Every structure is written in structure tokens, then in C-alpha cells.
């Protein structure tokens, strides 16, 4: 295998003294969709948030092990965390537009990063909204409030907002959990296009979705990585009994 985009090495994590992730090791391939799936409380979201250090915002946590992005430890003291988060973007389960217009939402990241040139900003808006499959629906009302959009549109706006920074890695935490099937389909289709350019890691909201989008899939159960293989294999011929029970719907 070529050099992985992200290498997670022996990562354990606890919150308030309670261990919620135990010795997880896995490599994430560039320009592919990797899925973290499993029952609630398995540590999927936690791991996702460790990859761009969003858990720094939470007090009372402890992490051991290493996480390497392009071979560099992102937890080394002196790491420029805002820059890391520009390289590793994130989309959350519940779409949360920032106060303000559609335009302001998309440009929030680039403007904080210091992009001022208005031609460049216009390009960013069109590119990221197009990639998130939202451009045609909003191109005539970029300056209207973002909260006026429907739930599905808001979630695609949040994806566009992350893409505006051209991150190398895009983390998606159940991005379609609040969406109807049509919006879900649109989001999934845009994921397939995104992986050409980005490394995508997604926590899906169902096993079916996991099977639909996964190039690689990791099954998490109670803070442990149970099985990590290609998407085709894990959903058709799981090796571990626990994985099999879960993907065939016997529990979870």
C-alpha cells in the first residue's frame, strides 16, 4: 500500500477517566472513502474529532498514541491547530449555518485564512457550492440568510463551507442523518466526486449507507476497532462474528 494519508497508531482516549477508545490502529488511504461504522457509543465520532483536534475544545480528556497526517504527528507541541483544521475539514451531523448569508457562510473559512481578493472569493463560492451540489439551487440568492434554506440544502451548504478551504481530508459525521432520501442521494453522489480530489472519512447513518459509499470500512464496537477491510469484503464476507451480526442486522 502506498503511504497512507492518515496513520492512526495505538490511539486510546478517555474522558473524565472513562476509557472510550482502546488502542486503535489503522491507516487511511488518500483519495478514497473510508467509513467508520458500528453501534452508537463505539467511538466513531470521537475518532473523527481526534483527526482535526476538535476534541481540544473539550476539557477533562486524555489521549495516548499518535496520529500522523502525511507522516507528521498532528499532536506535536507547536502544531498550528487552525491550519490543521483547514487541511482536515469537518461536516457535522446537524447542519448549523452560521448567522448571516449563504455567501458569508461559504466564505467564513477562506476569509479567516486571509483571502481578500474578491475574484478569488467568487471562484471559491461557485466551486464549493457546485461540488456540494447546491450551486444551481442558490446561485441567484447568495446574499439571503442561510437559515432560510431547507434542512437538506443547509447540510450541503455546510459541506460547501468546509470545501471552501480546499481541505485535503474531509470528515463527515452522519452528514445525512437529518435528511430525506433525495437529499441523501445528492450528498452521497457528491461524495463520489469529492474523493477524486479529497480523502473522505465518513461516519454513515446506516449500514446500508456504509455499504453504498465505502471503499474501506472500519467496524467499531465499544471503543475497539473490530475489523478493517475493503468495503466489498466487510459487507459481503465479514471475518469477525461481531461484524457479521451487525451488518446482517442481528443487533445494533
Amino acid at each position: 500500500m502506498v503511504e497512507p494519508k492518515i496513520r492512526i497508531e495505538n490511539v486510546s482516549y478517555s474522558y473524565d477517566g472513562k476509557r472510550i477508545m482502546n488502542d486503535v490502529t489503522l491507516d487511511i488511504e488518500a483519495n478514497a472513502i473510508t467509513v467508520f461504522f458500528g453501534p452508537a457509543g463505539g467511538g466513531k465520532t470521537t475518532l473523527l474529532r481526534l483527526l482535526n483536534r476538535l476534541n481540544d475544545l473539550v476539557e477533562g480528556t486524555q489521549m495516548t498514541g499518535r496520529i500522523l497526517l502525511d507522516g507528521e504527528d498532528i499532536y506535536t507541541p507547536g502544531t498550528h491547530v487552525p491550519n490543521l483544521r483547514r487541511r482536515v475539514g469537518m461536516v457535522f451531523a446537524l447542519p448549523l449555518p452560521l448567522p448571516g448569508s449563504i455567501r458569508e457562510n461559504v466564505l467564513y473559512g477562506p476569509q479567516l485564512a486571509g483571502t481578500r481578493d474578491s475574484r478569488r472569493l467568487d471562484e471559491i463560492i461557485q466551486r464549493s457550492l457546485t461540488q456540494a451540489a447546491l450551486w444551481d439551487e442558490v446561485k441567484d440568492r447568495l446574499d439571503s440568510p442561510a437559515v432560510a434554506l431547507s434542512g437538506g440544502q443547509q447540510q450541503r451548504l455546510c459541506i460547501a463551507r468546509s470545501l471552501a478551504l480546499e481541505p485535503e481530508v474531509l470528515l463527515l459525521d452522519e452528514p445525512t442523518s437529518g435528511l430525506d432520501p433525495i437529499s441523501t442521494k445528492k450528498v452521497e453522489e457528491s461524495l463520489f466526486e469529492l474523493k477524486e480530489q479529497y480523502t473522505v472519512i465518513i461516519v454513515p447513518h446506516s449500514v446500508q449507507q456504509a455499504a453504498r459509499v465505502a471503499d474501506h470500512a472500519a467496524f467499531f464496537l465499544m471503543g475497539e476497532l473490530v475489523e478493517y477491510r475493503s468495503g466489498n469484503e466487510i459487507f459481503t464476507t465479514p471475518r469477525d462474528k461481531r461484524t457479521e451480526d451487525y451488518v446482517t442486522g442481528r443487533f445494533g
Partner: protein
Amino acid sequence: MNRHRTQRIGYAFLALVTLAVVAPILVVVGIIIARGFGAISWEFISAMPYDGMKEGGIFPAIVGTLLLTLGTALAAIPVGIGGTIYLAEYARDTWLTRCIRLAIVNLAGIPSIVYGLFGLGMFVLFMRMGTSILAGSLTLAIMTLPVIISTGEEALRAVPTEFRTVSASLGGTRWQGIRHVILPQALPGMITGIILGLLRAAGETAPILFTVAAFFLPRLPSSPFDQTMALPYHLYVISTQVPGMPQSIQYGTALVLLALVLSMNLVATVIRSYFRRRRQW
């Protein structure tokens, strides 16, 4: 009992309670207007007092109160907003920050005369400001800070954490998130605290008693180190210290103070609703 009737009785009771709250305010304002309106004239609000304050106007007291309120705002707003942001967004939960919070809550309950004595000891004597607008403004500012900070903290905490997370995930530093996402949403609430605090400061007598207020000073202050007359203290003086003061002047002064405070309130409310509309959701 029939539940419709219960509901009607409930409504009637609530209406009665509301009336009990509103009625005293209407009565007080009504009496002040009725008895003071006759004293109001252009001369009354624009001239210096003379003949033992029984003649002329209250211009220096009006200017004094405006200047004191301005000085209080200049001192209290930056410190108050800064302290609020620090406490709500940066300070971790340690014994030190808990002590600070406890102190702020307790400060809000201290009688205003105690602030006056503190101002006298701290600013007038120890820091050698003398009885001056500067000392009075700082004393009023310290009295105002707890209100500004505790309402401001509430307003900041009312903004969901997720906004901070989203801002961080887009490469925002903590300060950028506060500046661009959190503050705009919390500002209307913070401004409410500032209004409440400043209005209270404008109407206070005790804190300015020893720190700035002049009994009778028929000229305008020329620097922050001057004494000045001020409406609340002037009202106290002409109501209790000067025998034979015509009642209309007393009520006229009260009316001007009331009008001043209410119009400042109005201006602040307009500012607040401007920020609220700008928030767009």
C-alpha cells in the same frame, strides 16, 4: 369546578397582578408629571441656578449627570465586555474563577453608599483624584460592572457551543470565533445589561455624594478633575437641605431626571434592536 371558569379566574388573577405592578409606576410618573410640568421651561433646563437655587434653572446638574453617565460608560463598557468575554469564553473552571464569579455576584448586592465610601477612599484620597468627575465616574463604573458582567455572561452562554465548534472546524481561532460568530449573537443581551447598569448609575445619589457631587456650583465643569452638580444629588439637596424650596422645582427636577433616564433607555433600546435585526435569525 368547570375548567373554563378556572381559566377565566386564572386570567383575571394574572391581570390583577400585572396591574398591581404597573399601577405604582403610573401613579409615580403621573404625580411627577402633574406637579413638575409647570416648572418646566426653557429657562429651567438651560439656565444656571441662583438665589439659593430657588430661581433659575438646573442646567449644570443636567450636564453633570450626562457627563457622569458618559464617563461611567467609557470606563465600564470596555472593562465589562472584556471581563465578560474572559469569564465566559476563556477562563477555565478553577477556584480562582469561581472566586471571581462569587465576588461579582456579591458586588451586585452591596449597598450603593458603600461604593461611595470606597470611591472616596480609593479614588478621591488614595489616588489623589480629588472630588472630581473622574472619581465619580470610576465609582459609578465599579458599581455598574457586576450588572454588565453577569448579564453579559448569561448572554454569551446562551449561544450554543456548536457555533464555537463550527468556527474552530473552519480554521477559526478561539478569538475569531468569538469576534465573528459568538459576539454578534450575544450582543443584544449584553447591551441590555449595559443599559440596566448605566441607567442605575445615572440615577444614583450615594456613590457620587463624596466623590464628585457639588452642593451648589453654578458653572459648567471644565475638566474631568472638576466637581459638578448632578441631578439625583441636586434633587436630594433641594428636597431636604434647602428650606422654603418651591415644590414645583423639586418635581420639575425629578421630571427632568426621569425624562433623561427614559430617553437614554429609548436610545439604547433602538441600538439593541438594530443589532438584533442584523443578526438575521
